[in-house]
């Protein structure tokens, strides 16, 4: 257990350093790109005085290190500043838009794992046979186009020509659901509105599939590759020599050892979905953080940009820590990093 705790502290320490680095980088870049944020915020009709006072309020006239100091102090107080675009605290914007994105990304991640791993296991178990070739074709097909292209294709096919799914949005307009968690699939259940829950899931399916497709292909190929390597190990021959069922050997004896190297990459793929979600959200008019991020970048809304990037970086780091912990829990060598027996 102490091994896991040490790992957790180590990863938290590294994450903190990464976070500081990311915030400095984004802070610097946001200040360097041309255009005066105060002027943009106030619009074309503002006079020089108004602009000057807003600049002072935003500490824009101070040196970069001082500006960064103000920023860090504010963040530590839980204050990300006001968004010039929405005229609300950035924290409030994020609280509104982040759950929509996470809901999408979580479902997409789940689909990726639920389909990618079994496809990889199938291919590895029947390596060199038709099942393997079929999975290879599927994987190539899904990886061949980025998520937003799939989004457009799926939308045209299954929302437009064949109207099985809604074209846009998170839930039908007829429902007015009280936002508790911001996750509509959860909030609808909290108020016990099954019809609304159905609508939320219905809206979620196409964008989640679009976002997950290339991940499915990657997870399948990765699982297959690692498992094929594992199949060469003596302990697999031993399992075969004991007459264990091939399906059991695949799912347990060969899959588990090869999951560990796969998991790191799958974790990265999952985190990368946060980025890919930008365009998928755009296609499906999904009111998530990514659309918000694009909007505030185009308006040079500094506080909102910083806040969005920071939240995405934090989510990314949390996902990585969770993946590392899962690997540690799965791998007895790490779990028992202090030799329990000799």
């Amino acid at each position, binding site marked *: 257990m102490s091994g896991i705790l040490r790992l957790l502290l180590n990863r938290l320490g590294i994450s903190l350093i990464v976070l500081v680095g990311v915030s400095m980088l984004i802070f610097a870049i946001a200040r360097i790109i041309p255009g005066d944020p105060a002027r943009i915020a106030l619009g074309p009709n503002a006079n020089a005085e108004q602009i000057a006072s807003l600049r002072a309020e935003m500490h824009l006239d101070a040196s970069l290190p001082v500006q960064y100091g103000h920023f860090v102090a504010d963040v530590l107080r839980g204050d990300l500043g006001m968004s010039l675009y929405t005229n609300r605290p950035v924290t409030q914007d994020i609280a509104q838009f982040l759950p929509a994105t996470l809901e999408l990304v979580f479902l997409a991640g789940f689909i990726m794992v639920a389909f990618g791993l079994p496809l990889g296991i199938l291919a590895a178990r029947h390596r*060199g046979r038709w099942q393997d070739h079929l999975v290879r074709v599927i994987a190539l097909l899904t990886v061949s186009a980025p998520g937003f292209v799939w989004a457009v294709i799926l939308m045209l096919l299954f929302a437009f020509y064949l109207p099985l799914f809604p074209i846009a949005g998170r839930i039908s307009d007829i429902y007015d659901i009280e936002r508790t968690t911001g996750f509509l699939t959860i909030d609808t259940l909290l108020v016990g509105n099954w019809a609304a829950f159905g609508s939320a899931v219905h809206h979620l399916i196409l964008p989640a599939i679009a976002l997950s497709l290339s991940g499915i292909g990657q997870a399948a190929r990765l699982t297959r590759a690692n498992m094929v390597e594992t199949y060469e*190990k*003596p*302990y697999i*021959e*031993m*399992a*075969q*020599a*004991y*007459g*264990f*069922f091939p399906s059991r050997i695949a799912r347990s*004896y060969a899959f*588990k*050892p090869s999951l560990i190297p796969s998991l790191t990459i799958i974790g990265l793929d999952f985190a990368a979905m946060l980025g890919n979600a930008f365009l998928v959200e755009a296609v499906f008019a999904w009111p998530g953080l990514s659309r918000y991020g694009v909007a505030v970048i185009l308006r040079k809304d500094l506080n909102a940009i910083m806040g969005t990037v920071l939240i995405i970086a934090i989510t990314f780091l949390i996902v990585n820590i969770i993946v590392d912990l899962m690997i540690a829990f*799965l*791998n*007895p*060598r790490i779990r*028992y990093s202090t*030799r*329990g*027996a*000799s």
Partner: protein
Amino acid sequence: MSILHIKDLHLGFKTLTGHVDVLHGIDLDIAAGEKVALVGESGSGKSVTARIVLGLLQETRTARISGTVQFDGQDINAMSARDRAGLRGTEMSMIFQDPTSALNPMFTIGNQFTEVLRRRDPKLSKAASHARATTLLDEVAIPDPARVLGAYPFQLSGGMNQRVMIAMALANTPKLLLADEPGTALDVSVQAQTLTLIRDLVEQNGTSVLFISHNLGVVREFADRVYVIYRGNIVEDGPTDALFANPQHAYTRALMSAVPRITGAGLPEVPEVSDDFLAPRISHGGAL
């Protein structure tokens, strides 16, 4: 009664560059309770023979197998894959060269033992299997069975894993034990101990053994009868004493006069290849 009867066994592999023949008509018999050694240099076809007996190579699509392999009166080659798998782990089992890499690193010894015991008795409870495994580990002189059952292979020494593997291989009282260069990966004294252990246990249980080795010293100690294999042909066979007292075939003589590279454990190095090595098989009799 013959437990294993191999007659005119041929094996070839389809490769990218064409067809390679690996076994050219092997004959080999093992009687009930008999310990038979198959000796030959690396690449001569010992392991593939064992894998055919286990019915594993039959699942390899590139392998072409012909001839008779009768186990306990049933023709292995004529069986369905399912029936062959049914024999493995119950009627026959195998001990591997490197025990630590032959045990799965993701599961405890206890878990792996349960799986093995359930081959014979699918409904065996966790507790019953734990109790049975404890007894079996005790029989292979493992001092603290409970601790070993809770451990992962990488937490145990090679010698300890070797004992675990022997206990597993004999757990379901198989009729035939295949041992493919057991313990070659371990150091010499541990290797000697495990061979004594295997011999005592199989003699107790009346288990037949196909013992694969390239170490003549070990073979002489262990086996009742010996087959010498050279490039996929049996070149000489006979009772251990007769064969060692009076080796007839040029290859056997070369093997015996060759100096082992490392005392007691290494491959004897046959200095040169001679046409005489391809001379016909010489049998000292002794088989059923």
